[in-house]
């Protein structure tokens, strides 16, 4: 199947498209590859961000632990003396810059001292009881869940470190809260790529730090816990997901060392796709321009070739339709123009040949017409000038017989009779010859003919003119004929009179006429049971003035069958015969069916048949 017509334009278009397609493919693949690389780079970047933030967070916690351990080891703290601890704790806070607000509680959770002034006698359960219980059961460094601070009203996490007494048993706990809004374990903000958001969450998805909009998100659950568990079960990696604010992002994630905290560094997918899309748009536009230009060029090039070719075809068509003044326009590329020039020469040559041929035809026609005229003059002369002397010969012979017959003896009268007989015979020959000559030039006036009734009619006329003998005439049904009625009547008359002439002189003389269809012709046959003829002389049968029997035996001029042949041949049919001496003859002639001439034979009306 072809999408384009098989024209020069079509071929050029196909060529241009087949050039453009791989180009488009290559460039498209290049764009895709670059986008993929960028995507991978973005993934790597998010992972790095996540890792670096996780490291910072871990480092922070490690520092915190060191600080708290150092504080917990202080004798003043270990003494768990409420009266003396506050000033020393304030000193320690100065000593350890990370220790923001420090408190020391006993095993019941009672605050012994605080870096900030607190109502000392009040039992303030700043540290939640679950954490305290865990500390009693297994005293070691811990980090609390994010809680809303009771005093500050801010989200905090508390780091707790057991204080071991002289006996080595835990006697209390040092706790230090970290204000989560202040805690930013992220690379400095100018180190963050545009649109990047880093979030630190706990295992249940609660946000504990965020690089952007921290006030809004800290303390809230950002993701469904299950999803967080599922994704973060991997500890580190990259994932594409929708962020809590509904933006599709690429997230690199990493667990903070030894803590149930996870860092998610997200970059919006848009940041990758937007430039890719922009590049695609730019490249696509450029590509479309280039392809369009190539197509337009090839279209124009094709037109430069095909237009003169079309003009040539147009001119040749006009020439073929008979316009002899047509010149093929010589235009276009050299090769096409060359073809046009050669065609012009060919046209001129053929026109010349045509003119010469026409001239020759005219000449021949004139010659033929002249010859024809001579022939007509000849036959006119024959009919006029040959007959007059004959009439004189016959007439004067008779006058001689009438006026002087008595003075002649029998031999003299016989010889006069011979003269008269021969003059009459020559008269018949001339008449037949003229009839024969006329058959050749008379136009055929064809119509449908009921051959059966025509044959019957002709036979009756012949019998009426020559009533001797009584042959049986067996006339079978004949197919309808298509031809000149007068001429075909002549054909039937000649054949039937021949049959009557030659039919056997025996007891049951018989003449048969039959007809049948044979392909696109109808065949008619006239058969007699007479003397027949020797097929060795068949060649002479249909010739003018050719006779196979002596005049004495069977009178005739020898023109009858020649007329039959001429008429039938002019009708597009054929004549032939079969015979054996003394066994009769069969004469056949065929006529094309009417359909061959493009006419339909009208069915014979009932009245036509006589």
């Amino acid at each position, binding site marked *: 199947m072809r999408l384009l017509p098989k024209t020069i334009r079509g071929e050029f278009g196909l060529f241009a498209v087949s050039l453009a397609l791989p180009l488009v493919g290559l460039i498209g693949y290049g764009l895709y590859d670059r986008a993929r690389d960028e995507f991978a780079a973005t993934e790597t970047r998010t992972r790095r961000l996540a890792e670096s933030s996780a490291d910072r967070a871990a480092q922070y916690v490690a520092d915190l632990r060191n600080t708290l351990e150092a504080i917990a080891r202080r004798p003043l703290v270990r003494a768990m003396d409420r009266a003396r601890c506050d000033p020393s704790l304030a000193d320690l806070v100065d000593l350890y810059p990370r220790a923001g607000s420090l408190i020391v509680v006993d095993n019941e959770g009672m605050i012994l001292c605080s870096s900030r002034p607190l109502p000392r006698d009040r039992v303030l359960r700043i540290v939640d009881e679950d954490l305290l219980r865990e500390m009693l059961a297994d005293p070691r460094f811990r980090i609390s869940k994010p809680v809303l601070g009771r005093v500050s009203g801010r989200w905090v996490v508390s780091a707790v470190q057991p204080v071991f007494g002289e006996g080595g048993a835990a006697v209390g706990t040092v706790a230090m809260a970290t204000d989560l809004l202040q805690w930013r374990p992220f690379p400095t903000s100018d180190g963050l790529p545009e649109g990047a958001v880093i979030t630190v969450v706990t295992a249940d998805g609660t946000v504990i730090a965020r690089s952007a909009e921290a006030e809004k998100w800290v303390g809230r659950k950002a993701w469904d816990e299950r999803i967080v568990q599922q994704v973060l079960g991997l500890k580190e990696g990259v994932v594409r997901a929708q962020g809590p604010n509904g933006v599709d992002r690429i997230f690199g994630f990493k667990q903070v060392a030894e803590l149930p905290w996870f860092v998610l560094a997200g970059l919006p997918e848009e940041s990758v796709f937007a430039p890719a899309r922009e590049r695609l748009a730019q490249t696509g536009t450029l590509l479309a321009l280039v392809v369009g230009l190539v197509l337009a060029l090839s279209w124009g090039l094709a037109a430069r070739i095909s237009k003169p070719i079309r003009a040539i075809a147009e001119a040749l068509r006009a020439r073929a339709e008979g316009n002899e003044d047509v010149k093929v326009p010589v235009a276009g590329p050299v090769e096409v123009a060359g073809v046009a020039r050669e065609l012009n020469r060919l046209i001129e040559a053929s026109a010349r040949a045509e003119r010469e041929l026409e001239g020759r035809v005219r000449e021949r026609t004139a010659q033929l017409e002249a010859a024809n005229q001579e022939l007509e003059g000849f036959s006119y002369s024959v009919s006029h000038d040959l007959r007059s002397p004959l009439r004189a010969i016959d007439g004067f012979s*008779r006058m001689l017989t009438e006026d002087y017959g008595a003075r002649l003896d029998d031999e003299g009268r016989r010889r006069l009779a011979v003269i*008269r007989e021969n003059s009459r015979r020559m008269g018949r020959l001339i008449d037949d010859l003229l009839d024969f000559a006329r058959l050749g030039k008379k136009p055929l006036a064809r119509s449908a003919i009921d051959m059966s009734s025509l044959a019957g009619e002709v036979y009756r006329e012949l019998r009426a003119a020559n009533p001797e003998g009584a042959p049986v005439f067996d006339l079978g049904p004949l197919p309808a004929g298509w031809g000149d009625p007068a001429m075909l009547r002549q054909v039937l008359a000649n054949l039937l009179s021949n049959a009557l002439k030659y039919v056997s002189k025996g007891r049951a003389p018989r003449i048969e006429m039959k007809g049948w269809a044979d392909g696109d012709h109808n065949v008619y046959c006239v058969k007699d049971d007479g003397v027949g003829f020797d097929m060795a002389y068949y060649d002479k049968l249909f010739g003018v003035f050719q006779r196979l029997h002596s005049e004495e035996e069977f009178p005739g001029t020898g023109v009858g069958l020649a007329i039959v042949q001429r008429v039938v041949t002019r009708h597009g049919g054929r004549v032939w015969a079969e015979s054996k001496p003394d066994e009769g003859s069969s004469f056949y002639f065929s006529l094309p069916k009417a359909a061959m001439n493009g006419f339909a034979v009208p069915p014979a009306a009932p009245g036509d048949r006589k």
Partner: protein
Amino acid sequence: MNRSRTILLVEDNPNDVELTLRAFEQSKIKNEIVVVRDGKEALDFLFGTAAHAGRDLRNAPEVILLDLKLPKVDGLEVLRRMRADERTRRLPVVVMTSSNEEQDIISSYDLGANSFMRKPVDFSQFIEAVHQLGLYWLVLNEPPPG
């Protein structure tokens, strides 16, 4: 009726003239037969000119037997001139000729011939034809009033 009951025979061939006269004779036709040998003489006779000047034109022939092949003025031309002239317009003309060329037959009738007869070669037939002709044109036919 002031008619001569003449037959005008226009025929150049003396043999044919003789044969025709013989045929009339044998047919027992006694009418006067005027023989002219060419078309010009025929016209002279009909219109009373030249050799026939002074002829009483009221004595128009009963019938004219006209050959077509004639010296000087041919038969068809004679016929044309006759039919163009008021005096001879209605005279019965029988074209008698050797040929039966279709064109001659058509031209003769077109020019107003009353009959067309082909002279048979067989003298017996010729006599029979002349007999029939005489019987018809001289006995049966009613000539134009003149």
